[in-house]
């Protein structure tokens, strides 16, 4: 099994639903079980939502999904505007926290605790990334390339079924 899906989208919230369907259709062509298809669709959509939220307006977002026997690798690239650069520091901190614990669910709980201490008008949570780590059991990382394009990648081994459950998020 060696499958690759690549596509580009405009940073438009309306695209998310279409991408969701397109990704589902692609993953259904593989021999991944249904829960895994749902999970990795969620991973892709979470990464895309982040790209739209923090990317440069009007700049294309590129997505690459590669599936091999051993792993699934998802990469989302987008340009990032100067005024969103400070967000990268928070992204960096969050990812280091997630990656620094053996159990991603503990990172998830910790992030929820942090969010509860944030002002309501700060619409930034990075909770989606923790979901990717916890539900998708994926290693997330990112890098800013020479052309100010942000590349966020999530890699997950495929030797086991990923979790497909969502812990309750406090309202």
């Amino acid at each position, binding site marked *: 099994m060696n499958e690759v899906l690549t596509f580009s989208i405009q940073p438009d919230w309306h695209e998310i639903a279409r991408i969701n369907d397109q990704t589902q259709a692609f993953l259904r062509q593989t021999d991944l079980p249904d829960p895994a298809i749902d999970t990795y669709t969620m991973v892709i959509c979470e990464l895309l939502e982040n790209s739209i939220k923090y990317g440069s307006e009007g700049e294309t977002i590129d997505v690459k999904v590669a599936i091999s026997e051993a792993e699934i*690798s998802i*990469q989302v690239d987008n340009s990032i505007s100067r005024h969103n*650069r400070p967000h*990268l*520091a928070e992204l*960096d*901190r969050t990812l*280091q*926290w997630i*990656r*620094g*614990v*053996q*159990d*991603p*669910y*503990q990172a998830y*709980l910790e992030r*929820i*605790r942090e969010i*509860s*201490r*944030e*002002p*309501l*008008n700060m619409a930034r949570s990075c909770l989606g990334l923790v979901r990717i780590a916890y539900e998708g*059991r994926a*290693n*997330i*990382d*990112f*890098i*800013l*390339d*020479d*052309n*100010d394009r942000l*590349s966020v*990648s999530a*890699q997950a*081994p495929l*030797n*086991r079924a990923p*979790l497909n459950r969502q*812990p*309750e998020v*406090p309202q």
Partner: protein
Amino acid sequence: MTTPQADNQSVDNEQRTSLNGRLVRGDQSYDVTLRYASQYSLWLRFVDAPAENPVGVYDHLTLNAETLTIETGRCEILPPAHDQADFRLVALENIHDFKKLLFDGRVDVLDNTARNLPLVLSYKDNIDPAFREHVADIAYDLSIYHNLFDRLDEEYAGEPPEVAERIQAGILASLGPQLHACIDEHIQRLESLIAGFDGEQHSHHGYYLRKLIWGDLLTAPFIARTNLKPRGYIGDSEMMAMCYRNTYEGDSTFGKLLHKHPVSAPGAQAVRNRREIIPQLIRTQLARWPASVEAPFKFLSVACGPARELADMYVDPQDVERIHASLLDQDPAALYEAGKTVESIEAQLDGKLSVDFIRESVRTLLSTRELKERWGDFHFIYSMGLFDYLTPPVASAVLRKLYALLLPGGEMAIGNFHECNPSRYYMDYWLDWPIIYRTEESFTALAEGLKGAETWIEFDDTGVQMMLRIRKRES
């Protein structure tokens, strides 16, 4: 039980407008107005006639805050104080922090984490029986040793400090090896028990182990730090410093022994080895490049931490003038410690080192062009505690950026723990210190596509610390 302290921070209640709310008890509901009373209570006044027997427990309160509606669960109305007209309301469920809500616009619920308890509690349902038995054995053994050493500590607690110090040193030397051997046995057994586990099983079993010996783990400063991660990330400069010191640290004999065990493990020895290897490499490089004040030998340390290796790098006063160091780390505390290292070398050599301190994360490094403009090129670049945390695509990208900063003929040394690290599961399960292990092949693969790069792998004495060595072709 700790008695919760009253919230004494004064708040000007006159400045706050009242909020509207609705209290429900059975099939009765009452409109109320509420004002801030304390962090977890509100002053309450009934809009119309109060309920008959208003004091007591209600089913819930709906509170209309400025931008959202808050629901508590059961709540209780306390009688007014003798000089007050208002009742006091305390939530018994969904216990909101009213100070954060009313003054900062933040929602924080005291009992929120309990919502996730079922999921965390259910971890234990999936614990392998043999592993469960293994953890019980660990917990039992640690508790026996813990009690023994605490009792001994109490026995000589009244002795003069110089006497107590020597007694403790004697106990550490005579009885310590027994505890360490006991931990070694458990760690050896662990590896066979978890063979074949997938990622989720590792997560749950590791969490289960740590929770059952949590109290013991926290007595050891090193293990407490790796588990609690006070700077928000693993492998911070203080953890490295503890590895370098490799001493008994802690408030009790038991804590000291438990601390000493991981900082003596092969993984920690590999960290100490780095400190010796890097200065040797630098000295070798120095011999390759004629350096002067006008054209100093330039090296870059990426994720430098406390940069202790510098102490063995600058060996004579000439080095002060012919070496320029660039020290990069994301953590200001690490750079501060690196600054202290530099200061001590300056004092020792009686000269001012030429050093750039760069606070930057490798993930958000500027473009190569900007980096070159700012820092120039380097004869030697090394990074020892970083790539263990980078996924392959990011590690490759970082490597490319660093390689671009290398002068023709320049070299790099990049460290990564090999997957055969005997401390691997100890680090994962006891220390909550997961890293990305690599093989020679996967490590070398990161350098694929680097133009004019000659690559090879080196190891330290433990075989744990692998180094990807890269040399850039002269032209």
